[in-house]
């Protein structure tokens, strides 16, 4: 029995997280499951919905940072390439706080109610990126209140697309939308890839009840990648 129906997709920028989420949305639709997309909700509301707001949807599609309250502060101010600098510590606090509100208001109640939650990025992103980004230790990060909470409610399944940072960067360049995030350069991404695939990360996740699946997205077509993701998740959910 998996510990919950919580699937987290994480990985490098340009690694195919969006495509993986798309595959899972299609999987839900093919099973006639009703989805609730937080990104769509956040276009109209600057808040985190509660379980009540989700209504009878069986699948919640979530993302971090959120686009509401603290998450908007992260996206529009803290990680923006503006002339104001925020330390690694402040940035880590912000992500943890955004996470804590998201989990307390929605994710934890939803998992308890047996909902399927699919989330792009989250606690793993903080663990992988933040100690590299600046002067903060892994230990300090995992002990922040929001991060502790997220590890207690770690996803049953973690999906990490596997590819070279070079390919990921090339795919990023082809995109219309520019995030203007401060992380997007090749040496940094090399370091990040190594961390995503490290033994210690796998052990940490395993100890918190997560199963980790790396899915090749280097030597594969988009459709092959998507159907592999759907297959792994269908097996996890016992569809």
């Amino acid at each position, binding site marked *: 029995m998996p510990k919950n129906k919580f699937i987290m997709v994480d990985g490098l920028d340009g690694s195919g997280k969006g495509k993986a989420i798309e595959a899972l949305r299609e999987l839900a639709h093919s099973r006639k499951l009703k989805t609730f997309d937080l990104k769509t909700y956040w276009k109209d509301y*600057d*808040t*985190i919905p509660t379980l009540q707001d989700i209504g009878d949807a069986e699948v919640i599609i979530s993302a971090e940072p959120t686009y509401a*309250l*603290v998450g*908007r*502060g992260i996206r*529009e*101010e*803290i990680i923006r390439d503006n002339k*104001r600098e*925020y*330390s690694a*510590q*402040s940035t880590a*606090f*912000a992500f*943890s*706080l955004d996470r*804590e*509100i998201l989990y*307390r*208001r929605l994710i934890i109640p939803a998992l308890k109610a047996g909902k399927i939650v699919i989330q792009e990025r989250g606690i793993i992103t903080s663990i992988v990126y933040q100690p590299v980004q600046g002067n903060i230790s892994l230990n300090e990060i995992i002990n*922040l*209140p*929001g991060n502790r909470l997220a590890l207690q409610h770690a996803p049953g399944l973690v999906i990490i697309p596997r590819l070279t940072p070079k390919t990921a960067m090339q795919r990023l360049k082809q995109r219309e939308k520019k995030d203007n995030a401060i992380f997007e350069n090749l040496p940094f991404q090399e370091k990040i890839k190594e961390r995503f695939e490290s033994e210690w990360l796998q052990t940490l996740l395993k100890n918190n009840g997560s199963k980790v699946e790396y899915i090749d997205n280097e030597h594969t077509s988009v459709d092959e990648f998507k159907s592999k993701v759907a297959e792994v998740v269908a097996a996890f959910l016992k569809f």
Partner: protein
Amino acid sequence: MDGKFFMVEGIDGSGKSAAINAIKDFAVSKSLKVLDLRAYCEQKNNFPDEDEIDEHDVIFTSEPSYSFVGKAIRNELLVDETSYPALTIAHAFALDREILYKKVVLPALRLGKNVVQERGFASTMVYQPVQDKIPLPEIMALPGNKLASQNPPDLLLILKTNPDEAVSRLNSRFSQKYSLFDNLLFQRKIEERYSSLWLRGYFEKLGTKVYSFETSSPVTVEQNRKNALRLFQNMIGNSVKSKDKQTQL
């Protein structure tokens, strides 16, 4: 020349809004351009850019703010239905402060604007060690709090009031429902900390001029307004830089 930074503190119901409104009314009566950050945030759901700040003469801010983290503090972290850990709340206040200072307060002061703020890191020093049992040094070491202590107000006005009177005043105010803090014993303890020598000493060491005025009866709202305005006028001297002209006060 840098603008002046005026901060107003005191327990809930001590008359902070009245004091600040007196300064606001005065600025408006002198045709100064007033930026009310709360109204701005509620309308735009964001903080103003430097260009927008520069179009104004006096900036009115408050903590928690009304965007991003400040909005989360007001709408989620401090509402009755939730119980977030103390550390989370301390981080949130410090983070809100850091964004507010970096995005609004410090640029405004650099642009020569006068900033009038309701509550700030004095509130953190007074409330959080009581409410959350986090040691003060730990709180003050948080990045947003360090930043605030490096950029202290020129003038700190502490409004002192009888906690019993303040609490009964608050009971007739329906919009205060969100506050965790409105109970008498708590307010008495807080009032004591606001009156303490260590708080005054802390700010005086940073170069802040500290004033504390009584606002309980028989002091009237009108007198509170006059006192606050007089301090503000003394602080900014006999003229203030307006975008268009030198306005004689």
